[in-house]
């Protein structure tokens, strides 16, 4: 075989290997569904007031579990572990929603459920309803429930045996993992991190032509530079740029330049909304990123790593060229 043939064969072998390596990297530690399908949708009253509909939680990773407030052992364990998962996610915690669906509608009223889930984490949502409302949800997730009276304990004294798995639903609303009770916190965290990373890649938000204006290093005080980018929202829901960071700057703010009858005003803005299907340009004379406290001079040809954080899509990195 010729040298060229060998190289071609080698390339082919590598190409064949790549999917296997990628699949290995994304291997879940909880039980995974392949191919993933849409998680059964439901809408129920929440402990925090209002209604929670699963399909409206798109953009977040949902950790769904079932239990009841009188549960002595299993439920508090699961909820304490999910609180740990959230706290260990740090800045990404806001991209995860824990949802706790009652298996005991007779005793679990919304106020009681609210007080219960809040002791684990203030952001946890407890959902309840009538048996007629909850029944289809239990069935759709394969939850088996058996009520056991506690002998001599009075009329409201019973336990509810129930499936205590944690269902992990990705930001596109697909059921990806069902982790049985007893799955270590590390493993749940590992799987959630895979989904958060994948969500950022599949994000509806696309960053186009990022660049940063050149800036000198000042000997006496740290200088700043402006960053620009076009944000495209290919999704069906509005999103908003809420904050940003840069590897070369101490902090980054979102500013808007306004022309007030000839006087240029620069104002800090809390966010830049990007409607579905829209392109929003951060450009000179309009919205821009203010890179404050530069750690070095920025010259043409250098690159700066910008991290833009969106309300729904989360953090997205972009390599910006210095011009």
């Amino acid at each position, binding site marked *: 075989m010729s040298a060229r043939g060998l190289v071609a064969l080698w390339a082919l072998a590598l190409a064949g290997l790549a999917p296997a390596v990628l699949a290995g990297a994304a291997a879940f530690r*909880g039980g*995974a569904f*392949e191919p993933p399908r849409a998680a059964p949708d439901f809408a129920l009253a929440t402990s925090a007031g209002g209604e929670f509909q699963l399909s409206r939680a798109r953009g977040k990773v949902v950790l769904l579990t079932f239990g009841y407030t009188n549960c002595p052992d299993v439920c508090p364990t699961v909820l304490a572990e999910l609180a740990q998962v959230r706290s260990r996610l740090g800045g990404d915690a806001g991209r995860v929603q824990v949802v706790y669906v009652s298996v005991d509608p007779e005793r679990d009223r919304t106020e009681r459920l609210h007080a219960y889930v809040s002791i684990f984490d203030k952001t946890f949502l407890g959902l309840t309803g009538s048996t007629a409302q909850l029944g289809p949800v239990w069935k759709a997730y*394969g939850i088996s429930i058996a009520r056991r009276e506690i002998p001599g304990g009075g009329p409201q004294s019973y336990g509810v045996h129930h499936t205590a*798995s944690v269902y992990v639903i990705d930001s596109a609303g697909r059921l990806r993992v069902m982790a049985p009770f007893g799955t270590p916190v590390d*493993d749940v965290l590992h799987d959630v991190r895979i989904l958060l990373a994948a969500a950022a890649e599949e994000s509806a938000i696309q960053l186009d032509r990022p660049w940063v204006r050149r800036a000198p290093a000042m000997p006496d005080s740290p200088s700043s530079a402006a960053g620009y980018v076009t944000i495209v929202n290919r999704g069906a829901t509005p999103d908003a740029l809420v904050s940003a960071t840069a590897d070369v700057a101490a902090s980054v703010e979102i500013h808007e330049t306004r022309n007030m009858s000839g006087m240029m005003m620069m104002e800090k803005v809390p966010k830049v909304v990007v409607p579905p299907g829209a392109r929003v340009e951060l450009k000179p004379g309009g919205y821009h990123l203010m890179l404050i406290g530069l750690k070095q001079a920025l010259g043409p040809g250098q690159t700066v790593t910008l991290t833009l954080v969106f309300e729904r899509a989360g953090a997205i990195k972009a390599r910006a060229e210095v011009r």
Partner: protein
Amino acid sequence: MTRRLAVLVAAAVVTLTLAAGAWAAFAPLATGSRELTFVIPLGTASRLKEGTPLTVLPSPIHLTVGVRDVLVITNDDEVVHQVGPIILGPRQTYRIPFRRPGRFQYACSLHATGTLTLFIDAEPAAGLERLRWRLDDWKFHGRQQLPR
């Protein structure tokens, strides 16, 4: 002459048996795949409807940490099936690795007892335990696998 031959053959057989035993007891356990796969074959739903008794899954199921510790359940049927808490759409697979010994019990309508028990056994130590694991695997593993 023939007697000497018989002694030699007997000695060879004993030596080989001892060697095989020693290998089975001390060689590290390695299987081609760490997965134990169960398949719900095409037509299971219609066979259940006809009332044909079916063994889709044995109970209990044994897995061994580090050797065969990934449970895979595949639904090759055209309708949704539920195995314990696992709901599988047509042609969908549930794959779960176990890294620690333990016991899991699931309510399962597919079993006459109504429960599916899963044992995750610790990796057998070299010696008698490993020898027993190999014998059991040879004896029972074939029965855990369902025809595809």
